[in-house]
């Protein structure tokens, strides 16, 4: 009887510890540089949207979603006006130099500005589609820029990364995933 009564004294302590644990998990996410607002994509394990975008300038090769089958690919939604897109760009150049196919969707950009971006920093993309209205980006469920999708050989979206890709994103998530998808 008395022992039981004592046990109830610990219930508030347990509740407070649980709340602290939740706070701590969110705080540590922020510390790791992850935004707690990052959302899971609604399109995971679903086929990519179907689209056919023109190139940045007249005469440029565009980007057709049919190109995304038969190999593991990355699709990067970027714009020259987006500072984090500049930040992540060296990682794309690195991946492209390793032979990993990256496709670009140039979101609501001015053709000259996009061209300048690529001329100054290099062009890692196998093909670039210019999404002037932003409608294709909406089909991909994009809400922040840049966003990068990992697409498997069947043309299904397997992973979505919101924000610039940093070195540890590559080593911890994207490279292992590409490796796993390739051996499948």
């Amino acid at each position, binding site marked *: *009887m008395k022992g039981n009564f004592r046990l109830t004294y610990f219930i508030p302590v347990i509740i407070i510890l649980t709340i602290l644990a939740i706070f701590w998990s969110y705080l540590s996410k922020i510390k790791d540089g992850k935004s707690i607002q990052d*959302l*899971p994509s*609604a399109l995971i394990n679903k086929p990519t949207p179907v689209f056919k975008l023109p190139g940045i300038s007249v005469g440029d090769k565009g980007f057709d979603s049919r190109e995304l089958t038969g190999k593991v690919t990355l699709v990067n939604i970027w714009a020259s006006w987006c500072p984090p897109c500049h930040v992540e760009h060296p990682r794309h150049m690195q991946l492209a130099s390793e032979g990993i196919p990256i496709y670009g969707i140039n979101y609501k950009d001015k053709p000259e500005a996009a061209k300048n971006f690529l001329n100054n920093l290099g062009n890692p993309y196998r093909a670039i589609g210019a999404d002037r209205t*932003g*409608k294709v980006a*909406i089909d*991909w469920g994009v809400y922040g820029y840049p966003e990068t999708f990992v697409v498997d050989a069947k043309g299904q979206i397997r992973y979505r990364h919101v924000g610039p890709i940093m070195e540890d994103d590559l080593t911890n998530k994207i490279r292992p995933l590409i490796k796993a998808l390739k051996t499948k």
Partner: protein
Amino acid sequence: MITRFITITLIALIISFSAVAVEPNEVLKDKSLENRARNLSKGLRCLVCQNQSIDDSNADLARDLRVILRERLKAGDSDKEVIGFIVARYGEFVLLDPPVNPRTALLWGGPGLIIIISGISLALWFRRRNTTIAEELSKIEKESLVSLLEDTPDRRGPEK
């Protein structure tokens, strides 16, 4: 001078609170369609500023979504189809009014669960309190109470 300043500030504040993000060029000519569009967009979350609806938000993406929503309505989509179109791309998170399904069961059932749990623990607490009182008055205590009440020097002697 100061009162005038305060009045102007207040009026500006009131106006800004009632302002909506919908721009004149977005508005549909068909009034009933426009009403449907407004109602639907009030229930859809803007993903850039996540605690605003796309009806309230000035974000670029919110504007694009409002325009797409109106295009779909004009094309003859039902309300459900329009919402489905957005949910297919952005997930159920866009619904400001979350639907009842297994994933949101805890969200919807949580308050009821808390009421049930606290009800049960309250009932247990009361029961325990009552039984403790009963136990306090049992056997030895009753006997000693009786003996205390009946305690007189005359009687005590021979009984012991």
